[in-house]
């Protein structure tokens, strides 16, 4: 059986510094995999490589048996992998619903020709897509704020919106960069429930997460990255309880 997502011997270096060093792992479909490791371990770099924002020096990533080497980010989204950014990168001068709409694929009138020559068709198509976008906002619990500008949303709401935006791409594998960081206890609970629900809806999740309690609660598998290399892989219990890994992660503070 071909693995769902597979990275093989990926190497990325910036100048002389190796951000990823012979990094290999696989991810299984339908599961929530957490990517953990100390700062600078290469977690975000992995995201950049998988989503085509960064070309690895050597090694490759394949998705459902298909090599993604040299693919552009938009082609990778179309293939079914979408990501979020740690610093969100929402379009703050657009409304919440427009942020979601900006990620919906295959819209009529997304190039000038249709926009000019079929304005009424574009208009009616837009009304339908707007309903679709509202439904997605509803799914993350933001339907009440659909027409608010992003800059007026709270940080917690922005973190939900970023999940709505990645959902809108229609991708089946979602790479979430710290979806739970900086949240209050209540909001944290909400995000964790949401991630579980996404899993139930058939999505596969790869999540960068620092909070070990969150990891223990949501992860099916854990990948432990250290100095750009996969140190260990296993269930959350085995990883969190491994004293050698804790030593690396917390520098012995635990």
């Amino acid at each position, binding site marked *: 059986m071909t693995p769902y997502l597979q990275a093989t011997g990926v190497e990325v270096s910036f100048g002389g510094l190796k951000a990823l060093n012979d990094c290999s792992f696989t991810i299984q479909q339908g599961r929530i995999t957490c990517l953990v490791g100390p700062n600078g371990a290469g977690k975000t770099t992995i995201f950049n490589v998988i989503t085509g924002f960064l070309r690895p020096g050597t090694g490759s990533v394949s998705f459902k048996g298909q090599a993604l080497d040299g693919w552009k980010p938009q082609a990778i989204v179309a293939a079914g992998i979408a990501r979020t950014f740690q610093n969100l*990168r929402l*379009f703050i001068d657009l409304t919440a619903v427009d942020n979601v*709409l900006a990620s919906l694929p295959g819209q009529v009138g997304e190039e000038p020709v249709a926009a000019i020559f079929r304005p009424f068709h574009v208009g009616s198509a837009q009304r339908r897509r707007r309903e679709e976008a509202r439904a997605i906002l509803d799914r993350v619990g933001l339907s009440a704020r659909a027409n608010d500008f992003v800059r007026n949303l709270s940080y917690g709401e922005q973190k939900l919106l970023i999940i709505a935006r990645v959902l809108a791409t229609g991708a089946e594998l979602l790479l979430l960069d710290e979806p739970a960081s900086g949240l209050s206890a209540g909001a944290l609970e909400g995000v964790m429930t949401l991630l579980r629900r996404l899993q139930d809806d058939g999505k596969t999740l790869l999540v960068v997460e620092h909070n070990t309690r969150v990891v223990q609660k949501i992860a099916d598998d854990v990948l432990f990255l250290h100095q750009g290399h996969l140190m260990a892989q296993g269930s959350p219990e085995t990883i969190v309880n491994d004293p050698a890994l804790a030593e690396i992660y917390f520098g012995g503070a635990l």
Partner: protein
Amino acid sequence: MDFWLSYLTLASIYVLLGLSTNLLVGIAGIFSVSQAAVFGVGAYIVAYFLMNDVMSFLPALAIAAVCCIALNILVTLPALRVSGDYFVVTSFGIQLLATAVFTNWTDGTGGANGLPGIPPPDLFGKALEDSSSETMLCVGGMVLGCLIFWLVMRAPFGRLLRAIREDELAVAAAGKSVLRAKVSAAALAGAFAGTAGGLYATFLSFIDPSSFDLDSSILLLTMVVVGGARTLAGSIIGPFLLLALPQILTLVDIPTTIAAAARQLIYGVLLIAFMLFRPQGLAGEKL
């Protein structure tokens, strides 16, 4: 010809150019000092077809628009593909090269003497001989241009362009092609500039290289900067205001020998002042 009629006609043509420059500079975010070159190519193409009786006005205008679309894509591609500020060089280079062609290719463009006697435009076999119907044509062109700009900006394409302006990386992560959107904007800008060129040539019935030089490109940039980037209102206000400027200057007692320099000097001051104190222009969004 009546002053107000000719002011309205010229302003209509420059609104089309303002829309064009706004699409390229304001919306796609590409610095350009070669829009006048594209404008000129449109003007010379239409002039050539009409003077040699090859075809009537509308098909000539369509061909000019298509050529200018191609030219604008060619001019902007380096800006989008090549890193660094090299596109600034490309833009200046295209403009200087175009001026060299307009001035020195005497057989095709009449050289520095220009092309006199361009026939008036015709619509469906009827020549528009009198000035008021020519004005109607140009105003019609402006209205159509504004309508197109409005349609495009309210469609998903417009939202995509706004999103690109905020964060290109996030747009790519959403699965959209930034390059394709910018090239589309540039193509549309080319169509506007080409059409404006055709209208300009037939309205004045005379063209020469001085209308399509670097100074004209700077004027177009000033129009967008003063009016305001990325909005329809900005693209209309800028041209109407700046075309009134030469008339205002005639009220002040400036020797005719330095009138052109004084005008350009004001454009320069406006560019600096708006960039420093009001980068969103009078009715636009922040550049």
